[in-house]
């Protein structure tokens, strides 16, 4: 990625032998830079040059695969610093830590229950971390075994003791857990242990400088299935290191071209949850917490969903008739778009007003009322078709529909096309409670 013809040319043999089909090495380099030739066409390129050119064409942040089976996940391949520049690619792996000193089965079962429905989708945590707090290798391996038997989530194995990691990998290695961590003292043995199973390995520094140095040593051993830990634990330091690592990676500083891990673990679960959310928004590939209580985890998963939503591709709900609070035949019919946020605003405020109602969502490819109107997707025609096709007026004993105040101009034509009375509602769904009070139930 991003290499110029001249930079590539420097790595070529400069024989100008034409065997690649190009008149000169330079011409071949230009073709490579333009993506119109493959390096394989030159029989004389050295292994070192091939390696350099391959890694130069690698993405800024490596794609790392974790786990096996249906809950396997990927991290990395991120390309931006701000979500509005494009989007964030791989949602942070929210990971709950279990100690090998506690009842592993009980906690893992609790973790398995952390399943939430948000805007019509299922959201869950991503991994279970097992920590070797006991300091005992066989106890650790047992805990890992118990965890593996009781959950489908990928595992994160936490121990600085190579023997404990090896024992745990014997149990769980085939399922590609994350190994935590290679540090200055143990990295050679840790690399060997992880390599044997091709398991992702966290490289842990004491700061950014020592992290970069250690990654290079690990890479020199031929291992690149890596995740980064700068060693920071304080909120402010983590935010700064995460930002710096992302910036460096995007500028192709290769030692930082991997996903990261951040530890939010805190004895105070509120502090822990707040930090975990902040680290999720600010670039952590994996974020680790202790709490398995839903009230602490739901906010993190919700924020992850929000921040990782593609700004260009909003989340949509199905285009259909939604029934709020068992509506009867005299209930109002509200028209909105199938942008999930628009729908949930209207549904939430209607429910909040304790008003039974029908909500009809017009298919606008998941964009908001005004956006869809501006884009010609929320029109008298689409509204009339949807109302007719979904048969919503058969459920009620009146001939009225309510449209959002923001598109009041649509009322005349919509009335004409549907033969219904079109009432212009408030501009904001927050105005619905007072609208119902004054204009519907009077």
């Amino acid at each position, binding site marked *: 990625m991003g290499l110029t013809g001249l930079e590539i040319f420097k790595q070529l043999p400069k024989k100008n032998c034409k065997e690649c089909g190009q008149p000169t090495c330079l011409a071949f380099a230009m073709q490579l830079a333009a993506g119109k030739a493959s390096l394989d066409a030159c029989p004389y390129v050295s292994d070192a040059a091939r390696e350099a050119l391959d890694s130069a064409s690698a993405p800024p942040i490596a794609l790392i695969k974790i786990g096996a089976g249906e809950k396997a996940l990927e991290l990395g391949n991120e390309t931006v610093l*701000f*979500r*509005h520049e494009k989007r964030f690619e791989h949602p942070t792996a929210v990971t709950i830590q279990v100690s090998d000193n506690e009842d592993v089965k009980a906690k893992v079962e609790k973790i398995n229950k952390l399943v*939430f429905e*948000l805007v019509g989708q299922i959201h869950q945590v991503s991994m279970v971390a097992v920590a070797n707090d006991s300091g005992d290798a066989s106890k650790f391996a047992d805990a890992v075994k118990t965890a593996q038997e009781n959950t489908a989530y990928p595992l994160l194995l936490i121990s600085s003791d190579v023997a404990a990691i090896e024992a745990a990998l014997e149990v769980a290695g085939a399922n590609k857990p994350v190994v935590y961590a290679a540090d200055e003292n143990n990295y050679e043995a840790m690399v060997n242990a992880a390599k044997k199973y091709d398991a992702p390995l966290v490289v842990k520094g004491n700061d*950014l*400088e020592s992290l*970069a140095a250690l990654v*290079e040593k690990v890479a020199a051993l031929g291992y690149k299935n890596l995740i980064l830990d700068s060693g920071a634990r*304080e*909120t*402010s*330091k983590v*935010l*700064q290191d995460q*930002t*710096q690592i992302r*910036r*460096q990676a995007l*500028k192709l*500083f*290769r*030692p*930082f071209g991997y996903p990261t891990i951040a530890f939010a673990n805190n004895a105070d*679960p*509120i*502090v822990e*949850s*707040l*930090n975990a*959310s*902040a680290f999720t*928004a*600010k670039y952590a590939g994996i974020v680790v917490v202790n709490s398995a*209580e*839903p*009230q*602490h985890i*739901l*906010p*993190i998963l*919700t*924020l992850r*969903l*929000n*921040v990782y*939503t593609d*700004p260009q591709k909003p989340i949509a709900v199905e285009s259909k008739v939604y029934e709020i609070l068992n509506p009867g035949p005299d209930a109002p019919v509200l028209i909105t778009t199938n942008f999930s*946020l628009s729908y*949930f*605003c209207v549904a*939430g*405020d209607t*429910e*909040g007003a304790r008003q039974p109602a029908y909500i009809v969502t017009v298919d606008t490819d998941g964009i908001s009322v005004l956006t869809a109107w501006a884009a010609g997707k929320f029109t008298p025609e689409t509204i009339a078709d949807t109302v007719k096709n979904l048969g919503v007026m058969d459920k009620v004993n009146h001939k009225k529909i309510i449209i959002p105040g923001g598109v009041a101009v649509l009322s005349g034509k919509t009335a004409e096309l549907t033969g219904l009375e079109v009432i212009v509602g408030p501009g904001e769904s*927050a105005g619905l409670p*007072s609208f119902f*009070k*004054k204009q519907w139930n009077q």
Partner: protein
Amino acid sequence: MAVNIIKERWTSKVAESTLGPDGLKIGGESTLPFMHFEGEMPNRPVTALEVFDMEPADWPEMLKAPYADVLGDPVAWAKKVVDLGADMVALRLMSAHPDWKNASAEEVAKTAKAVADAISVPLIVIGCGVEEKDGEILPVVAEALEGKKALIGCVTQANYKSITAAANGYGHNLIASTPLDINLCKQLNILISEMGLPLDRIAFDPLVGALGYGIEYAYSIMERARLGALTGDKTLATPVVCFVGQEAWKAKEAKDPDVPEWGPQDERAILWETTTATTFAIAGGTIFILRHPESNKRFKAFIDESMKA
């Protein structure tokens, strides 16, 4: 390979504003939020707790409980939120709403003055949310609060003229609201400043959504506005106001006392409000208008940690 720490060379910074009789300073950042290695954050983000001028109709029990003894008394309520550690008081003139008491400009101005006289922290005064009515009452409130250097809002495209003139005349700052749109924000800031109110006396309200309810739009707008401010766009360099409490306490996840699969309401609701706030803090928010005292405490603790160099 040594790590050459990447420091962006920002050419500009967020405007620094002063609020209240004692001159509380906000804004002035010359880097992205909490990136202390790169630039200055001379003033920490600040909080306000909301005080209603009448008993709030739609507050859940959990939110009313800490204020049970002061709910009908805005002056006592205001003193209480100061004791509870809010940096500012945000007085909401709900009684002026045509659906509630439809109180007159003179009535609400009297309340605002009584509250301002009872506290030494800066006062934020928020209208009833009906643009027309706010255009009538807020100029009268501004006059009554002369000398208090209050932060008054919210002004919109529809009502900014009368309120801007009054804020300018009586020495106050303004909150300018535009819905989640960077260009509308710039436009309103320009309209207001063209009437003579300097940009450093405006705070920008992007009409944030809560966690789970569109937080990502406001998050990205704030990031874009901060990048604009740091690269020299003065019309985006105003401090940002986040109406967190108002939005978070609309969410079922905060409001609903009884959803077993979400865990107990006490911690869940506080986290809903505080996570919304901390998320905006890392995107570039400046003033955080909260509702529950525990959220205020938790948020400030997060800011303490994030402000460490």
